[in-house]
Structure formats: C-alpha cells, structure tokens
C-alpha cells in the first residue's frame, strides 16, 4: 500500500481537460518527480494534491486518509513555489516562523525550530533580512525552510529551481535532495527539466497532455523510453522513422527506432567490431563541444545521426568531412510508438 495514493483524478477547465484519470502512488520517504512540458497538467496535479485546486473527479489519500476535499490548512502538506511566494513584509525568521505561529507553537519551541531549520538551509546571519534583500537562491532556501519547519507529511516542490541561474540551480538541487534524504520526507517535485528529474528522483512520472505516459526509475525512463514522446522529451535521442530504420539497419518496424547518442560508437572503416553492433558507413558533417562531450552530427545514407563521444583530449576531435564507420549497439535500440 502506498503512503500517497491518487486514483482516477481528473480536472477540466470548461471544455479543456487539464489531466484525466491520473493513477499515482508514492511510497513514504520517496522522492518522486512529475516531468513534462509546459501545459501538460503537472503543476495543476500538484495544486490538487495541495488542495489549492479542486479536482473534478477521483480521490487523493495520504496515509490512508481521504484528503480529496480537505482544506489546504488541514492537509499537513508543505509547498515551495517557483517564485518563492515569500511574504515581503516579514524577515527571513518571521517568514519561517509563520507556519509555527499559525499552529500556536510556544515561543521557545518556535525559536528553537526556526534556528534549527535556518542552520539546515545555511541561512545563518540572514534571519533579520527581508526577502528583497536576498538573492534568488537564498530566497528559495527560505521558502524551503518555511515549508520544512512545520514538519509536513509531504513536501511539494513546484519548479523551485527554474527561476535560478544554472550554478545556483545545481547546488540547490543537491541540497534539496540531501535534506529530503536526511529527513526521509515524501516529496513530489514538478519540473520540465529532464536533467533535474534524472538527478534527483527515486521515480519519475512523465506526463504529456494530461496523462502519465511513463513511470519508472530515472535509469528506466532514460534508457527505455516507452513512447516516441518520452524519447524525444528525455533528450537528444536519435529517432529513426521506420523507412530510415529499414534503409540503415534493415529492420522492419512499425514505430520509430530510438537510439541514444552515447550508445553509438565511432570507428575507422574496415575495423572489426563486436557482434552486437551494427556498422554503418557515415561522414562527419558537424561537431559541437559540450564540455566533456563532443557531439557529432554524422550523415549515413541520407539520415543524420547524433553521436556523443567522451572528450578525452583535443586529439580525439574528428574533423568535418571525415569518413567513418558508426557502430550502433543493437541492445540499446528501442522501438517506440
């Protein structure tokens, strides 16, 4: 039995279906991500879980309790918003203490808990600052601390990192994961960023057009996309149409063939290769340096393939126009529909 169970949940605005028949289960202490493009319904689903939006149909249960129609105040759910939603008239300490104040927590205990959570999110010496005096990363730490201090049953994170710059985003997501693991907090994270989802999650639910299209571990979602949409959404997958797959690899397929760029190897023409590789003659058309990865755009029989190659040294770089053999790992190919 799951700690959080969502069954048959649907939401419409007029004739527009936001999401339909959502079935979802979360284990206690699990870090789950709702991943999908803008408008797929992931944030609305999160809001229904928080009680900020009323679902049209279905049920939400937390620890066996039906909370579908419960007011947000009574759900015991903490939430961190994309744009922080910090109260501008309160200092960092007052923002964090707000939830405890509403719970009528004794002053001494309140001070102790606020100090503890401020230390956890590394905001010591900022207690008396107002939100507008803090950086984006610091504000999001305050928002996180404010949600954590009341010890919620579930923590909801609605794209909490998307307003931050790349460096802060990386460090904060590690901290979020670290705090979540330490507290064993059941967490639902909403994002449209695949990298964030893959880095943070125990399980990922990929959503598209109001439906969950695939569910699984980060490894499963990344290496075994169930649909063409998931393959496209999860990164720079090579997706070959059935005719291209037939022409290039002699495969008779009904759906697209999905091949990860890093599962294709570059080789010199005529060199031997393991049996599970399919060799294809190609020519390098372009390359991009992505830090530790060189991404080659190669052309093989009129089809362009992306190949990610580890950037070991500058000597590795193959110039445009080089004739090569690409070796496609048959075990890594997936037919998707």
């Amino acid at each position, binding site marked *: 039995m799951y700690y959080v169970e969502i069954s048959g949940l649907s939401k419409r605005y007029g004739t527009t279906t936001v999401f339909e028949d959502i079935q979802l289960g979360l284990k206690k202490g699990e870090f789950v991500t709702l991943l999908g493009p803008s408008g797929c319904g992931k944030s609305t689903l999160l809001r229904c879980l928080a009680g900020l939006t009323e679902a049209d149909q279905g049920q939400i249960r937390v620890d066996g309790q039906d909370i579908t129609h419960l007011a*947000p*105040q009574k759900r015991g759910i903490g939430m961190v*918003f994309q744009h922080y*939603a910090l109260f501008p*008239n309160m200092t960092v300490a007052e923002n964090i203490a*707000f939830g405890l104040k509403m719970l009528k927590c004794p002053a001494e205990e309140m001070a102790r808990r606020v100090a503890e959570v401020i230390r956890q999110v590394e905001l010591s010496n900022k207690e008396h600052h*107002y939100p507008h*005096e803090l950086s984006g990363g610091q504000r999001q730490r305050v928002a996180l601390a404010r*949600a954590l201090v009341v010890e919620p049953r579930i923590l909801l994170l609605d794209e909490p990192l998307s307003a931050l710059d790349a460096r802060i985003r990386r460090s904060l997501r590690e901290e979020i994961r670290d705090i979540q693991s330490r507290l064993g907090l059941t967490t639902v994270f909403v994002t449209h960023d695949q990298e964030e989802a893959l880095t943070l999650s125990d399980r990922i639910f990929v959503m598209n057009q109001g439906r969950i299209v695939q569910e699984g571990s980060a490894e499963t979602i990344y290496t075994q996309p169930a649909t063409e949409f998931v393959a496209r959404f999860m990164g720079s997958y090579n997706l070959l149409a059935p005719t291209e797959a037939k022409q290039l690899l002699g495969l008779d397929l009904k759906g697209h063939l999905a091949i990860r760029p890093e599962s294709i190897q570059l080789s010199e023409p005529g060199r031997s290769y393991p049996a599970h590789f399919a060799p294809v003659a190609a020519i390098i058309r372009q390359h991009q340096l992505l830090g530790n990865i060189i991404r080659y755009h190669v052309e093989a029989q009129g089809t362009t393939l992306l190949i990610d190659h580890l950037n070991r040294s500058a000597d590795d770089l193959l110039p445009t126009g080089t004739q090569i053999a690409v070796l496609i790992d048959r075990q890594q190919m997936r037919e998707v529909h």
Partner: protein
Amino acid sequence: MKTTLSSSLPVPAGAVTARPSRLRHWRAALLLAPLFVMLLLFCLAPMGWVVAHSIQGDEGLTLEHFREVLGSPFYLQAFDNSLRISLYSSVVGLLITLVGAASLRRVENRLKNLVVAFINMTSNLSGVPLAFAFIIIVGTNGALTLLFRQWGWLDDFHLYSRSGLILLYTYFQLPLGLLLLYPALDALDDHWQEAAALLGANHWAYWRHVGLPVLAPALLGTFILLLANAIGAYATAFALTSGNFNLVTVRIASLVSGNVYLEPNLAAALSVLLVALLALVAVVNQWLLKRSYHAR
C-alpha cells in the same frame, strides 16, 4: 589637414551620449513648464496669499485670527464636524473600497470592466447634482426614506444631519477610493495567500499578517487622499444643507462671500489650520512608512 592628438583619440562612449541625454533632460523639463506655471498660479500663489493674509491684521502682522478661531466654540465646532464627518466617511469608504477592490480582482473580466467603467462615470457625479440625487432618494420625503419608514426600518434618520452628511460623504469617497486602491491591490501575489493557507492560515489570518501590512502604504495614502477630499468638500454639503451645517469649508465660504460680513483674513486663518491638519496627517503617514519594511 593637421590632426591633433585629442581629435584622433577615440571619444569615450559616455562623452558621446552625455550631450544628447542632457538635452533630452532639458527638453523633458521644458515640457513640465506649463504644469509648473499652473501650480504656481493656482496652488502656490493662493497658498502664499492665504498664509500671508492669515497673519495680516489692521496694524501689521498678528496671530489674532488664529487666536479667534481657536478660542471660538463656533469655529471649533466647525472643525469638529468637518473632522468627524471626514474621518468617519474616509474610514468607512476605505473599508468598503478595500473589500470591493479585493473582490473586483477575482470576478471575471467583463464584470470587472463594467464596474470600473461605472465607477469612473459616478466619480464625476458630485456637488449639486449629487445632493439633489440624495434628496430625492433619502431626503425627508425621499423614495427610500418613505419606504423604510413604512416598513419600520427607519426611525430618526435625517439626511440634513451629521449622519446624513456622513452617508453622502461616504458615497462620494467610494469611486475615488476604488480607483486608487484597485491598482494598488495588484501588489498582492496570489501565491502568498496559497502559501499562507498551506502553512495553516485562514483568510483573516492571511489578511492580518500579510495582505494588510503589504497594502499599508497604499491604504494610508488612499486614506489621506479621502480625508483631504472630504475635508475640502463644500458644494455638496452646501447644496444639501443650504449652509446651515457648521463645517469649516462652509465657514470659510461665508467669511469670504457672506452677505453679513466679510473677513477674508479670518477665512485665511481657518484655511491655514485646515491645511496644517492635513499636513500633520501626511507627516504621520510618512513617519509610519519609514518605520515599515517598505522603507528598507
């Protein structure tokens, strides 16, 4: 052609843009000139005239007019009436417009636009037409007065009394209050209320701890404008009471255009005291704002 060192050096970007920007600055300042002229002629000059005459006696400079005002129960009653009516109508008007503006943000756009257009229109109905409208609706023999008396809902309401004036003043405060507060409410982020709700705050707790403190500058600013609007009101009150209700503005008018006696210097002293009262309220407002988080 001789090339000098300075002419061959690249001109710093700042130096290139400095002249046109200064020119733009002067051009903008020049466009403000008509406004300054109007302010000088019809605000500052009359103010100066009023201040000068308030201390002008038969034998030179004197504070006699102020002494006369502050020592006269009649004039003090005028201040008391003006302040009470202005204060009550401003507070009630502010509360009604706050609730109205907050609700207006949540209704659908069509209704919102309709209400805003209606408010814009009604804000121009003041003075004598407004007094007449009130007389035919809630006057001694007004439609609603007769109806409410018949139903036993109304006993001693009298439009030409202080409570009648408060009702009238409150009414004409509403459009101004709403037009001032409605845009100010955009400062409130809906996510604050959601965040507060998830932290256990009900509707009232949110407004008490977040909504009202954030809106404080707008509320105080609106309150002062409403207060000034009410204290300075003359035509509506005069039309309604034929000058029989003792208000400061009615007294000032009677002293400068009365057919019994003319005392412009005394009227000036009354005006200066009225302005001083408003200035005091504005100073308190600024002091409160400086103490709030908004000043940081």
